[in-house]
C-alpha cells in the first residue's frame, strides 16, 4: 500500500464517521464568517431553534461590503452610505451578539478580508479543517490545513453540528520545480497553472502544491497560490508544513505558545505527503519557464504571458472554445492578434484576498517608487488586506510611496475585487487587477478585468499599458 498524501492525512484526522454510501462526517475545527453568506444561516438556526455546537470554533469579520474610502469608513457601520450594505454588516454584528460568536468589527485594527485575517491572527493553523462561506477559503491550505469554501446551507450545518457531510476528493499534485525568474510571483504561477489545466482542470480534486519553487515561496506567496486553486476548479489547495510555515505561525495571537507550541509543532511536522504517496493526477511546471501572466478574457483560463498576443478564434477547431473566445473578445473590446502590452487599463486595483498582504504591497511599492501613475489612468486603488497589513505598510512608508505616485491608499476590505461596495468599474473600463476573477461584470457592470500580479499592476499603472515587469 502506498503512503498517504497530505490531504489523506488531514481527512483521516478529522473523520468522525464513515457511511455505507461513501459519504463521511468530517469535523470542522474553524469556521470563518462574513456578512454576505451568513445571515440566512443564522436565520436558519433561529427558525429551527438550534444553537451553535461550539462557539469558540467560529470567528467573524465583515469584509465584502465595507467601505474602503477613509471618510465613509470612519463612522463605522452607521456611516455606510448604501443602506442595503449597511443592513448586511449590521446583521452580522447582531447575529454574532445574539449567538455569542466572536466578531472582529468593522473598525477594529484586526479587521480585514477574512482570508487575510485568519492566518494573520493565528485563527487558522496547520492541521485544521477550515471552512467559510466563501470560495477563496482555499487560501488557508497554505498553512497545511484542509480548507475550502461552502454554501450558506453548509455554514448553517457547520454552525449547528461542527461537521460537514463530505465525499473524499481525488489527489492532485502540482509541482513547480526550479526557480522563478525575477519579477515572477506566486500569482503568475497560479495563472500559469490555470492556463495549463483550465478552470475545470481541478474539479473533483484536492490540489497539493509542491516542488522547489513552492518550498522557496513565502507564506504570502503560498496563500496566493492556494487562494487561486478554486479558479482551477479545485475547492482546496494546500502546501506541506515546513519551517517557513512554523516561523509564520509562531507568536500569532491565537496560535499556541509555550509547551503547547512544542506539542503542536510535533504534530504539525507530520503534515506533508509521504514519499511514496500516490496522486491521481500530477502536473509539473518548470519555474524558469513561467513568465508574468495577464488575462485577456472573461475566465481565468483565458490567460497569456505578457509577451503574448490575443488569440484568434478563427483558427480554433473546438466550436465551444471558438464561441467562448469570440464572446470574450467582444465583451473585452479586444481584437485578435493584439499584443498584450498594447492593452491600456483605465483603472488599477491592488488588493483582494489574493494579493493584499504586506509582501504584495511591498512589490507594488517597489515598482512605483519615485514614479507617477500615467495620465490615462482614471484611478489606482491600493486596498490593504487588513488593518494590520495597513499599519505595517505605513510603518514602512509604503502608503507615502503610493500616494506620491498618485494612487489612493484605502481602508481594508474586499473592495473592487467584486465591487459589492462603492469601488467598481464603469461599463467598458479596463482594469489591471490583482484579484482572482475576470468574469463578466465581476468588478462592475460591463467592467473588463485583467488579472495580474501586484508588480505587474503597478507597472501598468505607471506605463499606462501592460509591460513586462522583468524589464522594469
Amino acid at each position: 500500500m502506498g503512503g498517504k498524501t497530505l490531504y489523506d492525512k488531514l481527512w483521516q484526522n478529522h473523520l468522525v464517521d464513515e457511511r455505507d454510501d461513501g459519504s463521511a462526517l468530517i469535523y470542522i475545527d474553524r469556521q470563518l464568517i462574513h456578512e454576505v453568506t451568513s445571515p440566512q444561516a443564522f436565520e436558519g438556526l433561529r427558525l429551527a431553534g438550534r444553537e451553535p455546537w461550539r462557539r469558540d470554533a467560529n470567528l467573524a469579520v465583515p469584509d465584502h461590503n465595507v467601505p474602503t474610502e477613509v471618510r465613509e469608513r470612519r463612522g463605522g457601520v452607521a456611516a455606510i452610505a448604501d443602506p442595503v450594505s449597511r443592513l448586511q454588516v449590521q446583521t452580522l454584528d447582531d447575529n454574532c451578539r445574539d449567538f455569542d460568536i466572536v466578531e472582529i468589527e468593522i473598525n477594529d485594527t484586526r479587521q480585514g478580508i477574512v482570508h487575510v485575517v485568519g492566518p494573520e491572527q493565528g485563527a487558522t493553523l496547520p492541521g485544521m479543517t477550515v471552512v467559510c462561506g466563501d470560495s477563496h477559503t482555499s487560501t488557508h491550505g497554505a498553512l497545511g490545513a484542509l480548507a475550502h469554501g461552502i454554501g450558506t446551507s453548509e455554514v448553517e450545518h457547520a454552525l449547528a453540528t461542527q461537521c460537514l457531510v463530505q465525499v473524499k476528493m481525488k489527489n492532485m499534485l502540482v509541482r513547480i520545480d526550479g526557480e522563478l525568474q525575477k519579477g515572477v510571483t506566486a500569482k503568475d504561477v497560479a495563472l500559469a497553472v490555470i492556463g495549463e489545466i483550465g478552470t475545470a482542470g481541478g474539479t473533483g480534486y484536492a490540489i497539493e502544491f509542491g516542488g522547489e519553487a513552492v518550498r522557496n515561496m513565502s507564506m504570502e506567496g503560498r496563500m496566493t497560490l492556494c487562494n487561486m486553486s478554486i479558479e482551477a476548479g479545485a475547492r482546496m489547495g494546500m502546501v506541506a508544513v515546513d519551517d517557513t510555515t512554523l516561523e509564520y505561525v509562531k507568536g500569532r495571537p491565537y496560535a499556541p505558545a509555550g509547551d503547547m507550541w512544542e506539542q503542536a509543532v510535533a504534530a504539525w511536522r507530520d503534515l506533508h505527503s509521504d514519499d511514496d504517496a500516490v496522486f491521481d493526477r500530477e502536473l509539473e511546471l518548470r519555474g524558469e519557464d513561467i513568465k508574468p501572466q495577464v488575462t485577456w478574457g472573461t475566465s481565468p483560463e483565458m490567460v497569456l504571458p505578457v509577451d503574448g498576443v490575443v488569440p484568434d478564434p478563427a483558427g480554433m477547431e473546438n466550436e465551444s472554445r471558438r464561441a467562448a473566445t469570440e464572446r470574450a473578445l467582444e465583451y473585452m473590446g479586444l481584437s485578435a492578434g493584439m499584443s498584450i502590452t498594447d492593452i491600456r487599463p483605465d483603472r488599477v486595483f491592488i488588493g483582494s484576498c489574493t494579493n493584499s498582504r504586506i509582501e504584495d504591497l511591498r512589490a507594488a511599492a517597489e515598482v512605483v517608487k519615485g514614479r507617477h501613475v500615467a495620465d490615462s489612468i482614471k484611478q489606482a486603488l491600493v486596498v490593504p488586506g487588513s488593518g494590520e497589513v495597513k499599519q505595517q505598510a505605513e510603518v514602512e512608508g509604503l502608503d507615502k510611496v503610493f500616494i506620491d505616485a498618485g494612487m489612493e491608499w484605502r481602508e481594508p476590505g474586499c473592495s473592487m475585487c467584486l465591487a459589492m461596495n462603492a469601488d467598481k468599474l464603469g461599463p467598458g473600463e479596463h482594469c489591471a487587477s490583482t484579484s482572482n476573477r475576470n468574469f463578466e461584470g465581476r468588478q462592475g457592470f460591463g467592467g473588463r478585468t485583467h488579472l495580474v500580479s501586484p508588480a505587474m499592476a503597478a507597472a501598468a499603472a505607471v506605463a499606462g499599458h501592460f509591460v513586462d515587469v522583468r524589464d522594469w
Partner: protein
Amino acid sequence: MKSFTVLQGLAAPMDRANVDTDLIIPKQFLKSIKRSGFGPNLFDELRYLDEGQPGQDCGTRPLNRDFPLNYPRYQGASILLARENFGCGSSREHAPWALEDYGFRCIIAPSYADIFYNNCFKNGVLPIVLDAQLVDTLFEAMYASEGYQLTVDLERQVVVTPDGKEHTFEVDAFRKHCLLNGLDDIGLTLESADAIRAYESKWRQQSPWLFDVIK
C-alpha cells in the same frame, strides 16, 4: 427543503460553457439577508439591458429580447440545459436560490463546479450530469421542437425524452435519499451527535491548542 421525485417540464437553454455564479446572480443581489426572491435577478446581466439594483421592480426594466430565457417559447421552463463547468467561481448559494426561485428544479449539463453542485442538493435542485454528446443531442432536439419537455425520475435515475428514450444518470446515494424525501441534513447529522462528541473529546486531547482559544 422541497422534495424531488419525478419532474416533467419544459427545457430551456443556457448555451455556453463555464457559466460562473457571478453570471447566475450578480453580486449586488448578494446583499440581501433573505433566502428567497432572487428569481427575477437570475442571469440579470443577460436578461435585462440595464444594470439591476436590489429591491428594484424588474417588471419595468428593459428586457434583452435576444436572451433565450426571454423568448415566449421558454416561459415556464423548469429544466435548464447547460454546458461544461456550469456554476464555476464563487460559492454563493444565491446561485441555486435564484435558479430555484425562477422555477428551475433540474439542470442537465456535462459537468459542474464542485461547490455549486453541492449547493444545489441543499435546495431541492437536481444537477444531472450527462455525457457531453448526449447533452448536445438534447440541445439540438430542444431547439428543433418548441415546447420540448423532459421527464426526470430521480428514484429510477433516468431522464426521459419525448420519444420515450431513457438516459440514466449517476447520483450519490445520500444526496438522492435527502432529495427524494426533502430531508434537512442538519437533523440527520445531529442523529450522530454522540459520535461527534466522542470524536471531539479525543481530538481535544490530541490537539488542545484548537479549543477554547477564540472566546
